[in-house]
């Protein structure tokens, strides 16, 4: 479906990214691309460095060496909020919602970099600001409905069911108006039905909103079902990359990861 990335076609390129924590090499000179409009999965056994790599892409960590280029801008070293403003959004492996805020407030917070209103106009209550806020509330409601949370605006995040909390994380990420969405184990803890719904939802996102997706996932049905490309990390190194079918039959991958998963 997607031709292999040739420069400008890639929304994100990571070049020789390396991250060391003391003596531990968490990510070892990884080259990585996400073609525009594709769904790419990052898989690997526990401790392979997937989340560390994620955190480098989103600006939580600064890489020890190498660089990340997102839509033509070098983002390695930028703080997370600037990366978000450029159009990259993420969810968290262990849900990190604002638990004591309502669903709609969670979504509104994520619009921070898109809203112009400042402190002064808020204090003065300028009409321009009121229009912007009304518009933001409306869009937030729409996003909640789109993400499968219609009518849950005023529910506190922590009172939502687990599946709904996952959906709210995605709605919140979408509110930042991303071009690239990074999902860190989004189906962890979901039952098979919820997982299937979520897979359809991600496919719909790509189709309707023109968003590229990077997925960290353990559920192989999800990975094999929706990914255009799969990258496999093991001990911080990229050991395979390609279409799901190819990766599935790669010997090193079977050895490192899928072998045990397939028989277990």
């Amino acid at each position, binding site marked *: 479906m997607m031709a292999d990335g040739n420069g400008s076609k890639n929304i994100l390129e990571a070049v020789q990214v390396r991250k060391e924590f003391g003596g531990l090499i968490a990510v070892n000179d990884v080259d990585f691309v996400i073609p525009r409009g594709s769904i790419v999965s990052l898989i690997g056994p526990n401790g392979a460095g997937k989340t560390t790599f994620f955190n480098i892409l989103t600006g939580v960590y600064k890489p020890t060496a190498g660089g990340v280029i997102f839509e033509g801008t070098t983002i390695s070293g930028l703080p*997370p909020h600037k990366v*978000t403003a450029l159009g990259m959004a993420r969810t*968290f492996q*262990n849900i990190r919602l604002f638990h004591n*805020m*309502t669903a709609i*407030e969670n979504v509104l917070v994520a619009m*921070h970099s898109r809203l112009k209103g*400042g402190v002064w106009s*808020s204090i003065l209550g300028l009409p321009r600001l009121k229009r912007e806020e009304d518009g933001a509330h409306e869009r937030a409601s729409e996003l909640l409905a789109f993400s499968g949370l219609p009518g849950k605006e005023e529910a506190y995040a922590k009172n939502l069911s687990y599946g709904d909390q996952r959906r709210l994380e995605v709605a919140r990420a979408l509110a930042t108006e991303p071009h690239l969405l990074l999902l860190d184990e989004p189906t962890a803890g979901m039952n098979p039905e919820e997982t299937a719904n979520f897979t359809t939802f991600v496919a719909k996102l790509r189709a309707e909103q023109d968003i590229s997706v990077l997925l960290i996932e353990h559920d192989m049905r999800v990975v094999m079902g929706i990914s255009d490309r799969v990258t496999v990390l093991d001990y911080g190194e990229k050991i395979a990359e390609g279409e799901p079918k190819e990766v599935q039959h790669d010997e090193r991958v079977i050895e490192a990861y899928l072998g045990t998963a397939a028989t277990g």
Partner: protein
Amino acid sequence: MSDRASPQAPKAPSKGGSTISSWRASYRRYRRDHKWLGWGIPLAAVVLAFSYPWWGLEGPLSFIFNDGLGIDNDTLFIMSIYVMLALGLNVVVGYAGLLDLGYVAFFALGAYTLGWFGSGLFSQRDVHFLDTNAARLPGIHLSFWVVVLLAGAICAFAGILIGWPTLRLRGDYLAIVTLGFGEIIPDVFRNGDDVGGHNLTNGVRGVTQLDRPGFGQSISDATGGILPVRYTSLELRPWYFTVLAMMLITVFVNLRLRDSKMGRAWIAVREDEIAASAMGVPLMRTKLWAYAIGAVFGGFAGAIYGSFINGIFPTSFSFQISVIVLVMVIVGGMGNIWGVIAGAMLISWLNFRGLDKIGERIGSLPGVSDDFSIAKYKFGIFGALLVLMMLFRPEGLIPSTRRRAEFAEGEGQATLYDARA
């Protein structure tokens, strides 16, 4: 935002629920069905506050409020000052969740701003701008209203200066560093009487003979004398009305910010810094705003307080004040404006008059020595109050719905997330 009726509100009180919670539920239902209460209650409170001199100080209820509770002009003024301080600190602690133990620094800086720009401290200079003193005094004398604004601006600047390095720290570390700044700043004023040969603060002797607010002859004449030419130490009502007006501005700004983009960002940062930052909230900027806005109100309060007391001394700005203001915010209900106001009024009344009054009552009982003084045990009483609050009502007197939800955590509604974590 936080006061909006939540979806849980209409739920019938659960079996065995206390009478209070069923009252609360019916009150919420009533509030929901009578929208005008949203502005009606605050308006009534404002009217009551402004008319207090006619019904509380004198008139029908004075035997309770003035005589019984001892809320006279001085106490009223101090209570209002503390409400302002508590509301300022509420932005920092209640909204943004930054534990600031050195808030008194901004109160002091505001007062000293008046010392610099509204007294004879720099007596070699002769700068005057719309000041309302009877004679042309030596020194720098700007209009009091200009000085108040300057105090706000200087405190905001100081807030950013102090916040820039310190707000990178979290939790306990931030508390300790702000505690340090709260101690350093009065010390700077104490030793500021010889900075390279210049006397900037008059040291321990403090600054006295400060300018008073006033509107000048022409405005006073134009309003038929309603706005006084110059406030005096004999007629205290204008002071009270002025500080009340400043307090209302503080409330208004608190309200507006709570429901703004910045208010949401503050709460998000308080809840989870990493998630907030990943959602596009710039952490430093957001925290600096909270710190600076809190500082501005500390500065406003400091300037008018200094003028009212007519003397600024380094010893007036002790760590005690930081703690008492923090206690007001916590006892009242962090993050809830009405709770913070109630907490500030209660604690400042107890601190300045209430305990004395209670002591007098106890002292007049038969069999109790006349010189029994409950005020001596002030800090013991506040400590006990705080411990009792934490045990029985940790969310504060009037908590925000958000805080109430927060403290209800762990009462049988652990989410799957908590179980996994």
